[in-house]
């Protein structure tokens, strides 16, 4: 009898808190190279480092390189450049669910793209005939905001995979308003004020510290007064297990 009671107390103590390892992670975006094998017109290489501040928040720093070309019947376009992203990520999973291995949440990032682009030729047809021209190379810095949402999980010890859906809003394009690039490294489609992206990541993590996080007890639903009155006799007979179920 005493043993059972002690075991029960131990179980309650374990449920009060959970140990979360804080990690420093480094990772690679893998869809860019995969896409490049099937479509040589777009090369996107991206990596990141991330450091946990606490069980909910981490700091993300990403950088990448893009080399993009696009051709269609009436123009040929190329763009390339490097980009950076920085900002906090928030894990929305409860600590007892995340246990330092799972992440489902949001990131809010500031993005900076250093781009150069050129339209080597374009053609325009109208009543008067066909006119072919070209646009000289231009370069600049674009600033954008990014909200990312997704999921990451530890597949093996310290090895993680995950995906993120990104919504990006251009803040400052840094380009000629009449002739912006159709593609910004790190941002995507230049013709849109809002751009969407999808990234798949693999990453390695190094735990650098363990913290004990208290688990918030799940709220116990209080029965309504009518039910309480009606069920008073029944409640007394079945004891504490019956309340709120």
């Amino acid at each position, binding site marked *: 009898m005493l043993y059972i009671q002690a075991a029960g107390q131990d179980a309650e103590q374990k449920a009060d808190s959970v140990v979360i390892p804080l990690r420093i992670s480094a990772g690679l975006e893998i869809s860019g190279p995969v896409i490049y094998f099937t479509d040589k017109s777009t090369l996107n290489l991206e990596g990141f480092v991330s450091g946990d501040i606490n069980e909910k928040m981490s700091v993300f720093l990403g950088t990448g390189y893009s080399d993009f070309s*696009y051709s*269609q019947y*009436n*123009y040929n376009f190329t763009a390339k450049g490097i980009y950076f992203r920085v900002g906090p990520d928030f894990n929305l*999973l409860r600590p*007892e*669910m995340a*246990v330092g*291995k*799972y992440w*489902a949440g949001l990131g809010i990032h500031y993005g900076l793209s250093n781009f150069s682009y050129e*339209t080597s030729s*374009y053609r*325009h047809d*109208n*009543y*008067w*005939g066909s*006119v072919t*021209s070209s*646009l000289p190379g231009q370069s600049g810095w674009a600033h954008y905001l990014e909200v990312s949402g997704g*999921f990451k*999980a530890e597949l093996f010890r310290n090895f993680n*995979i*995950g*995906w993120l*859906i990104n919504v990006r809003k251009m803040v400052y394009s840094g380009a000629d308003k*009449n*002739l*912006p690039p*159709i*593609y910004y490294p790190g941002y995507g*489609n*230049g*013709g849109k004020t809002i751009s969407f992206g*999808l990234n*798949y990541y693999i990453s390695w993590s190094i735990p650098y510290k363990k913290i004990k996080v208290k688990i918030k007890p799940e709220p116990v639903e209080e029965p309504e007064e009518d039910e309480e009155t009606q069920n008073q006799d029944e409640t007394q007979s079945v004891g504490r297990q019956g309340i709120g179920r």
Partner: protein
Amino acid sequence: MMRKIPKYILIVATTVIFLLSSCSPGSCFEETNAYVKAKFFLTSTSKAAAPDSITLYGVGRENSYVYLKALKVSQALMPLDASAENCSLVLKINGVNDTISFTYSTYSKLISKECGYAFYHSIETPEYTKHIIDTVIVVKSTITTLSEQNISIYY
């Protein structure tokens, strides 16, 4: 049980996202020609009035018509030659010929990734003959692909 939920979400969501991420190239559904958009007015009433018929063609391109005896055109779309700084168009209103000459500057404009580039223009006050045309007034000198009136033709 709780630890199984994230793995389940990961597998299902990753599959869905892979399926959704396949995309096809878009088509161009936007206007890529920047026309001078001319609206017709009767001088006698100053009210908008579509001519009974119009014919429009470029000087030097007499065998190619923009409009040929087109009926009740309330707003004519006049193309400019992007390879030159000026061009002239013959406008026949109700069987009477006039010539309108445009002088302009041209610049490139990205329409969209799908459509590519267009030529926009900035026109000066046009010169014209007055056989049936009374006055040509420039309302908006920037010629774009937007649907906005550029000149008023009184006849």
